[in-house]
Structure formats: structure tokens, C-alpha cells
């Protein structure tokens, strides 16, 4: 599904990813942990093609396609989804209008007809209920005046609507109380299937009690320095990253 080979990337002239390798098969959930500033968000941004994140060398194939040959929106339509660490507000643009446009863009790419407004409404209501977000949020401006937790749930709702192939969750759990965390985890678990893969970036092994990963990676100094299973997360929680960071240098 996703193969990252010796990826080197720069942000603002500064090299952040230093030869990162990662291979993800369909249906797998990979957790990525690591100290602040290690390059976790940078990885998500490079994979989705955000401006300002420049690939120096290495390559990434996604379902057989060279990801770096695709525009940002083409990658999205191919099924790469990023749940943002800090979702931005778009005042005045209704969530509904925004979501319908994005779902239609993805459907068009897949050769499917646009959804009627009625069908879309129905689907959107179902998804909002699954993340315990009042359907009234659909009528509000995109993230406009949403609390931190509401923004994160809104991201998961979009993920459900878009049915991506690869879901990258960037610290979706940070700032959530335990109830909201369970809602988000339940949403992700409901979407797990043999064709869909996840990259879950988190600081806390707490999330991994709810979303049980197949692999846990430690990203430090722009590389994966250790790979294990969920026991590694527990070890990190106990010992911190210091002992591993040295290995990344």
C-alpha cells in the first residue's frame, strides 16, 4: 500500500527527515511516537504534499503510484487523508457545503456519480452521530468556533465520509478528554478493514489501549529508530525517549 524509501525532506531550508524508511500493508495500523520536533507532523505533510515541505531525495509509492508526481488534491482523491493536528477555520463556508464538495471530488475521481443533496445529508448525519457531534455542526462554518475536541471529531467525521485508503492521524488524541478519546477511537476502529491502513501519530500510549496498533515505531531525528509492537509503547511511556534518541544520531 505505502512504501517510503530513504526519504530525506527539508522544511524552510532545514533538513528534518533524514532517510526514513517505512512500509505499510493494507489493513495495518502503524503508530508513530517520538519526541517533540522529531518530524512526525513533517512526515504527514510531506506525504500529503503540503507547500513548503520539500523532498530532497528518496521515494514514496502509494498503491503502485509515485506519490510525488501527484498534486495535493490528486493524492487526496487517491485516498490519502490527513487528520490535522491543528484544523483551521474557514469562516462562512458551511461544513456541509465543504464536505459535499470534497466527497463529490473523491467520487468523481473514482468514476462514481455525485451524491444527491438528500443522500449526502443522510450520510453526513449518520457520520456526525457516530462521532457524537450534533448534526447542527454540519450547518456551521468549517471549524468556526469549534472547541479543540469538536475540531478533532469533525476531522474523524470527514474521514468517515471520504472513506480514504490511507488515514494519517496527527495527534488526534491530544487535548481530548477520555470520553472524546473513546469516541475517536471507536470511530477509527469501525473503519478498520483489510483494505485500509492507518498511521497514528501520538504522544500517549493511552490512545493505543483503544486503537491497538500492529506496529509501533519511534521517530527520532528524522528517522525510524526503533520498531516494535504495542509493548514498545508501554516501554516508552515508562522510560521516555532519551535512551532511543541517541541511536538516531
Amino acid at each position: 500500500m505505502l512504501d517510503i524509501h530513504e526519504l530525506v525532506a527539508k522544511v524552510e531550508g532545514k533538513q528534518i527527515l533524514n532517510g526514513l524508511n517505512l512500509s505499510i500493508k493494507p489493513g495495518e495500523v502503524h503508530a508513530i511516537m517520538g519526541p517533540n520536533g522529531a518530524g512526525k507532523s513533517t512526515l504527514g505533510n510531506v506525504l500529503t504534499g503540503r507547500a513548503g515541505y520539500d523532498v530532497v531525495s528518496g521515494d514514496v509509492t502509494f498503491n503502485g503510484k509515485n506519490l510525488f508526481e501527484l498534486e495535493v488534491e490528486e493524492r487526496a482523491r487517491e485516498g490519502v487523508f490527513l487528520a490535522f493536528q491543528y484544523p483551521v477555520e474557514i469562516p462562512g463556508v458551511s461544513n456541509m457545503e465543504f464536505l459535499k464538495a470534497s466527497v463529490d471530488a473523491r467520487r468523481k475521481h473514482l468514476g462514481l456519480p455525485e451524491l444527491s443533496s438528500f443522500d449526502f445529508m443522510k450520510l453526513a448525519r449518520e457520520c456526525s452521530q457516530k462521532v457524537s457531534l450534533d448534526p447542527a455542526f454540519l450547518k456551521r462554518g468549517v471549524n468556526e468556533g469549534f472547541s479543540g475536541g469538536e475540531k478533532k471529531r469533525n476531522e474523524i467525521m470527514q474521514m468517515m465520509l471520504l472513506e480514504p485508503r490511507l488515514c494519517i492521524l496527527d495527534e488526534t488524541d491530544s487535548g481530548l478528554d477520555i470520553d472524546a478519546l473513546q469516541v475517536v477511537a471507536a470511530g477509527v476502529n469501525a473503519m478498520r478493514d483489510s483494505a485500509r491502513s492507518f498511521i497514528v501519530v501520538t504522544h500517549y500510549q493511552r490512545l493505543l489501549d483503544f486503537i491497538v496498533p500492529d506496529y509501533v515505531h519511534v521517530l527520532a531525528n528524522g528517522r525510524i529508530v526503533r520498531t516494535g509492537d504495542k509493548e514498545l509503547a508501554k516501554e516508552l511511556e515508562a522510560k521516555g525517549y532519551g535512551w532511543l534518541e541517541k541511536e538516531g544520531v
Partner: protein
Amino acid sequence: MSEQVESLIRKEYAAGFHSAIESDTLAPGLDEDTVRFISAQKQEPEWMLEWRLKAYRAWREMAEPTWAHVHYPEIDFKSISYYSAPKSMKDRPKSLDEVDPELIATYEKLGIPLHEQAALAGVAVDVVFDSVSVVTTFREKLREVGVIFCPISDAIREYPELIKKYMGSVVPQKDNFYAALNSAVFSDGSFVYIPKGVRCPMELSTYFRINELNTGQFERTLIIADEGSHVSYLEGCTAPMRDENQLHAAVVELVALDDAQIKYSTVQNWYPGDKEGKGGIYNFVTKRGVAHKNARISWTQVETGSAVTWKYPSCILKGDNSVGEFYSVALTNNFQQADTGTKMIHLGKNTRSTIVAKGISAGRSNSAYRGLVRINPTAEGARNYTQCDSLLIGDRCGAHTFPYIETKNASAVIEHEATTSKVSDDQLFLCQQRGLDAEKAVSMIVNGFCREVFKELPMEFAVEAGKLLEVSLEGSVG
């Protein structure tokens, strides 16, 4: 954001074609004979000619205003032709069947069907082509309920009492340089009268088109809503793409008598000039309304065209409890300049005004909001709420706000809010990450920004306005 947004700033002007219609166009130049010629063409009564000449003599003594935040080369008023009429109009057509098919085709290209059966449901249309009104639809049907909707040149002949009483009563001949010029040489425009207590059964609209080279358009519109009546009126404007600048100096006067309501909406899409800033319309417009007791005047405008816009639709809140509203979206791109806003003059007691102005600047354009709220000593209990929001696309454009507040009554309550924001890379990235292309994303963000104003437009036109913004922004991100 920069390059990405910069390259979105390339625009195609869809209404920019020129129609091959034979015209009688007066040689360029302006003197008393020009004024006499225009008046004669319109077969006007003597008093109208005198009125024009008085305005012309006043204009000669006046100087062009220079206080606006716009820059353009000096206009040579002698190099403009002040009258142009399609040849086929010489013997005024009695019905649509006699109108030059090329003309009808022109309006069809612009999406304005002139055949009544094909016309937008419930919208009566007056069409002004260069200097003359070519057709007014649904005139008879409106007449049945007493509504008069006709070219102003017809009204001067047919309803002299109304014209004498009201023309110049809101915008006097000497009001300002452009209004004086308009008063001298205005060629056509629309006239509306809604009788007492009548709710006009359909939207009224006028489409203005400048077709001929080197002609100016100086239309004049007068709307009178008699006591307790209601009317909603929309004007639209387009012009061909030309390398030369063309002048448009209109005057609009609204009179809302006791308990009447006038809603005046504008979708202004004059040719804005090309990417390098060549050509485009100079749009110098005076629009003003007087609201009598309990009356309401609402101006809603979506301004996307013109090279230079100078325009301040205003309300004189004369009667007690009268209400004035101004909702505006002004979008500038490339080298366009707009200095627009409103004046709310509170004279009566408990008068209220609301101003919502949204400015969007892209490319190297500049837009300025200039607003005056004046509370006179007589305006006990007056209230004003003003909100000015600017949205910048790219970093080579500018937005400026010039609010003037003059309060001479201590009981007045005035609130003012202003914001400036940018279409951010983060917003664009969120949209693109969800599969939307950059242009769709920008137009969605801009439309969201304008929502409060668009909801004031008549339904059919709100959709049009959204599309117009989309076209006007084409090429501003890439």
C-alpha cells in the same frame, strides 16, 4: 502564499465581446451644443433642456475630486462621445419583434433573455445599450397594478410632474463633479414609480451595456416608492474588453415615502481592464436615497468590475424611525482600484443604519472602504452598526478602511467593527487535502467570507453573484 495565489490571479472576462451593431454616435466633444443635441434626440420639453444646461454650466466651474484612494490618468472630457444609439433604434421599435436581432443576441450571450416568455420568472427587465433604453419587458403587466417601469426618457415626456418634483431632489445637479456632468448629458436609464400601498409584483431590473468605442455612459435612474409601497430592483452592468478606458458616471436617486421600502441591488461587472492594467471602465457613480417616516432603504452591491470604482450609495434618514442598510462586496483583482462605501445621514428620531462592507483584494489591486455616519442634533436615539471586513489574497494587494463618524447627538449609539484577514495557506491546504482544487478552494473561501452580504440579494442573483466572484478570481491561485 505567494506564488501559488499569485498565479490564480489571471482572469477571463466573459462579457468582453463587442457586438457589430450599427450606431449613430455623436463626435467626441462637450459643449452646450452637445447638451442641446442630446435633449433634442430625446425630444425633451424645454424645461428639461434648461435643467441640463444649468447643470452643464455648474459643471464647467467644478473640479474633479481627488480625495479618493484611486489613481488614474487625467480624463479628457472632450475626447469622449456623449451619445451613441443603435441605428435600428431611430424609429423606436414598438415591440420586441422590431428590435435588431443582433441586439437580442448580445443580451442572450450575456444570459439576459429579452423575450418575455423566456424571461426570468417574475423579473421585469429594462435594457440600456450605450445611450438608449432598447426594451422594457412586462411594462403592460406592471401598468395593471399602477406600477410605472419605463426608460427615463419616456418618463420625462409622459410623467413630467413626477420628474419635475423628484429628479434632482435627492442628488442635486451641483452635488458633485460627476453628478453635475451626468445631469447635463445623461442619456437614458430607468424610471420606477410604485403607487401607494402597492407591493411590486415582480423584481425590476435594468441591464446596462456600453458597446461603442470612446463613448461614455451616463445613465440616470429614479425610483419613487409612494407611501406604504415595496419594491426590489436590481441593476447589472457589462462592457466589451477594450484597451481604452471608458467612462461611466451614473446617478441613482431613490425616494422612499412614509412606510415605503426600497431594496436596490447591484451586480456591477464592468470590464475591469486586462492583467497588465490596460483598459477598463472608470466607474464614478452617485447613488443616494431619502427615507421618509418609517421607510427603509437597502443598498446591496456586488462590485467585481471596473478599472476604477468611486461609489458611495447613501441614505438620508429623514423621517423618524427610518432605516438605512448597506451591504457590499467589492472584489478587486490585477490592477483594479475601488474606493467605495456609504454615507448614513441620520436626521430623524430613532433612525437606524446597518453597514456590512466586505472587501476582497487579489493581485496588485487596492480596495478602500470609505464610510460616513453622521448623527444630526435632531436624530434623538439614532443607532448605527458598522462592520468592515477585508480579505487579502496574496501579498501584493492592499485594503484600507476610512470610517468617518460625526455625532452631534449624545443619545446616539454607534458600533464599529473591522477585521482584516488573508486566505491562508493553511486554509488552502485543508481544502486541497480534502480533494478540492485550488481555484475551487479560493472561491469557496471567498464566498464564505461574503455570505452575510449574499444572503441580502434576491435569490436568483445570489447564485449569479457567487459565480461572478468565481470567474473574477479565476487564475488567482494555481
